[in-house]
């Protein structure tokens, strides 16, 4: 395909939406720069153990597409990179990017593990099981800069002296695909986050129980490593709530149903209870998936929002005070673990808007595509709370809009 404008498209965010948009643009012959703040591509999906409604691992499909992105001659991937500025010079957009190079260079690392074995502080971990190419990284908060690792590394991949690199790029357009981040729930004390290690958010629970994670899929309590008798999943934690996030985060109902089912699969003795408001199961197979175990004997659904979640003093356990709105009964139940679901929002902050490169955001903090020069295209959670399939559809749509915009220029 021929196009009149040949400058690349900048995609901000290397999650599934950014990857999808990059592959579609490159597939049609357009150059792409894919910017990722973190150390890996794959975004939040790379942190997921399983995907609903197929129960597939997120690993294979994601790894496959990440590899396609890494290999594609038209896609330049910039990890550890943030956009510092988007400016217009002579009617062309320029992006200023800052790359903070990692201490361990992933192209030199042979993944032998000598550094991690040598580190006296245990500050060196792998970049994760779902990463291509695999490497190690140093937890800067734990590292005491003793330099043992630099001496032991056979390929001199470790260098603490690397400095920030700033580069400027002429671009045609920007596609925002910056995804979601967890919103801090501590301002709403009734959820009890932070009062007990066994009260955690859904993303923490996913990591804690992942088959490829630290516990190799075992369902255990964080406080004393024992097996919990029951787990409560609290939906709409911070979401559909005028005090914090007025919108529905769209993915959490299915996410909780998935987690409850996997708890059941791995340990059928653990009772799961999902506290929900509306169980939103819009999507292929979602409703049937939610019926599979839920509503059966081991996963109970209770319609109601807990009014208070608190650790029971001097005892092991967490009390949940709630009204079952279907029976109008007010009760207090004891749980061993609590998973909070729903506190996810766009990773773009309203406060960022003062910076002159931020896109136009709606009241809920989502990009409003088409509203100005640098927020013409967006996809994924940065535009609208959406699940994996929805995000990649939006990504394809954003990609083709960017291609058509090139033709008009």
């Amino acid at each position: 395909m021929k196009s009149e404008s040949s400058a690349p498209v900048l995609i901000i965010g290397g999650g599934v939406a950014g990857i999808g948009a990059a592959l579609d643009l490159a597939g049609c012959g357009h150059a792409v720069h894919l910017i990722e703040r973190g150390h890996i591509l794959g975004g939040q999906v790379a942190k997921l153990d399983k995907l609903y409604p197929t129960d597939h691992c997120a690993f294979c499909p994601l790894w496959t597409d990440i590899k396609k992105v890494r290999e594609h001659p038209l896609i330049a991937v910039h990890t550890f990179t943030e956009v510092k500025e988007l400016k217009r010079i002579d009617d062309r957009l320029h992006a200023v990017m800052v790359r903070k190079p990692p201490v361990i260079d992933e192209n030199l690392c042979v993944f032998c593990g000598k550094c991690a074995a040598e580190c006296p502080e245990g500050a060196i971990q792998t970049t994760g099981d779902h990463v291509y190419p695999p490497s190690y990284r140093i937890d800067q908060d734990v590292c005491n800069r003793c330099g043992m690792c630099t001496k032991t590394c056979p390929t001199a991949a470790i260098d603490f002296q690397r400095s920030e690199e700033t580069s400027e790029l002429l671009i045609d357009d920007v596609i925002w695909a910056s995804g979601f981040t967890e919103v801090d729930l501590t301002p709403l004390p009734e959820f009890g986050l932070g009062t007990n290690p066994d009260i955690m958010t859904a993303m923490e629970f996913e990591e804690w129980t992942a088959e490829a994670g630290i516990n190799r899929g075992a369902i255990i309590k964080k406080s004393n490593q024992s097996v919990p008798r029951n787990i409560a999943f609290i939906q709409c934690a911070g979401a559909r709530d005028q005090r914090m996030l007025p919108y529905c985060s769209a993915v959490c109902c299915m996410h909780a149903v998935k987690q409850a089912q996997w708890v059941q699969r791995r340990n059928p003795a653990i009772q799961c209870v999902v506290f929900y408001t509306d169980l939103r199961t819009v999507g292929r197979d979602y409703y049937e998936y939610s019926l599979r175990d839920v509503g059966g004997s081991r996963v109970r659904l209770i319609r109601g929002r807990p009014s208070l979640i608190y650790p029971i003093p001097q005892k092991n356990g967490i009390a949940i005070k709630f009204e079952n709105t279907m029976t109008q009964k007010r009760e207090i139940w004891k749980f061993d673990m609590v998973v909070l679901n729903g506190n996810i929002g766009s990773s773009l902050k309203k406060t960022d808007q003062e910076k002159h490169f931020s896109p136009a955001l709606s009241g809920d903090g989502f990009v409003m595509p088409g509203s100005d020069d640098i927020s013409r295209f967006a996809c994924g959670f940065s535009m609208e709370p959406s699940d994996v399939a929805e995000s990649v559809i939006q990504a394809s749509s954003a990609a083709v809009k960017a291609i058509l915009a090139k033709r008009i220029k």
Partner: protein
Amino acid sequence: MSGIAVFLCRCFGEINRVIDLDSLQKKLEQDHSVVFFDVVESICLADDIKEAASRIRKSGAEKIVIGGCSHLARGTVVIDGLVREGMKRSAIRLVDLREACAWIHADDPANAVQKAWDLIRMEIAALYHRRESDNVTISVCPEVMIVGAGPAGLSAARTLGRLGFKVHLLERGSNPGGMLNLISHVYPSDEKAQEKIKLYVHEVEKNPLIHFYPKAKIKSITGFTGDFKVQVSSAAGEEMFRVGAVILASGARVWLPHGLYRYGKLKNVITQMEVERQFLKGPLTITSAVFIQCVGARNNERPYCATMCCPSSLKNAVRIRDENPDARVFILHRDIMTPGSTLEAYYRNALAKGVQFIRFEETNSPEMLGDERVEGVDVYDVINGIKIKLDTDLVVLSTPLVPNDDNVKLAGMLGLQLDRYGFFSEIYPLHPLETRVDGVFICGSARWPVSSDHAMMQGEGAAVKAAALLGRETVSALSLSRIPGEKFGHASVNAETCTGCGNCVAVCPFDACRLQKMGRKSISRVNKFRCKACGNCVSVCPNGTVQLPEHDYRAVGAMIKRAFGEESAL
């Protein structure tokens, strides 16, 4: 047979501190199929790969065994690097000497060496017998067929027309617009459906690249990605054309709730679509209305949520309140399905506008009161735990979208899969607009019930996927791979030994094997563009006629023998 090169990596001592690589080297010396071997300090760094590639080229070897780390560590980096240097991906085999031998058997070096040697000579055997699938390249026909001219099809047609591709847009009715012709406004923008579709229809009529076929029926589709042949009868008569890609946007139909809530018996119990029709005629000034959700959906027969019924009811309920602020409007629901930011705000707007919501349970659904006309609805409000009688002049039943009947026929012609409800299946989870047949894409409610806005978005998405294919001049059978790099091969049939039993035809999930008359007997032929190299046909072939050349039976046989310690010659 061309020779094999073997590289053994020390990985800076990680491997050779357990595995005695010198003894392996001695054994390699005696292997006649190995024309070159060496032990290197590391092989995965950029310079190592370049050097290895030049040494392989000099040695004249065409097949390579790398003894290093696992695929998931740096192995893939090595293979990718060698492919970039011009080596053939399927001629490179990786042996995991680090994780699978040196690390895990660090306490038993003697057996670790034996395991390493077994693994290496297995791969040598596999490569020795490896043959290559012959690749086929065809030129891509840069035209596309879009089935259905509803919101999804129109949006796909507009996009592809703008990108400069010739579009054949088929519609079973006489006019473009699909479901949007039947409704008055669309959610969540509350635009007029007619206005929304007008721009698209205008462009379809104006763009000379888009050919519209009203009253179209597909007689047959044959061929494969890049080169489908379609026979169509339409208002303009019978026609035959070639296209490179197919986009299915044939939509879905609305289910009619016969037998439920006394629909068809009581005069003013109507469906959502009938409300839309009345709104199309003009305002619907009424004093009360009750909307009932999940009519015929989320039950045993149709265990799914049809996505668009809740927002549609919100839209029409608010419209009734807007027309008559005194109207009493209730929505009886089982869950309000408005995920996300836009739809949740839409729901809040309905609450603010005074629409009232009552939740009921599937097991205790509302009852209609009245003889000829509905006069009221009895509903058990589970949230308040009371039975309520609602007086009303109108009951609106929200029914789901169900798959079109001709989905089965279309799926049969193209070799597609339908899901358990009858909608077209997608590739989970990252390619929701693609199907398992290359060059066939799905969008809109033919894929899964969606709103018109989403259908249009999916139309654009399917268009960009098709454009990536149509923009290529040629496509080769081996390039059709979902995983990065080339497909490693495809099945091939020995025409002389094939008995035409048809076993392979029965088990092929991709419609790639077909029986073809050849002289007096019929033999199996494999379409290389449809074949995904799954190997089903190979396993059911009674006499080894069908083979995957890259996984030849001699190669697999030799690997098995060597795995069990047999010192067999190749």
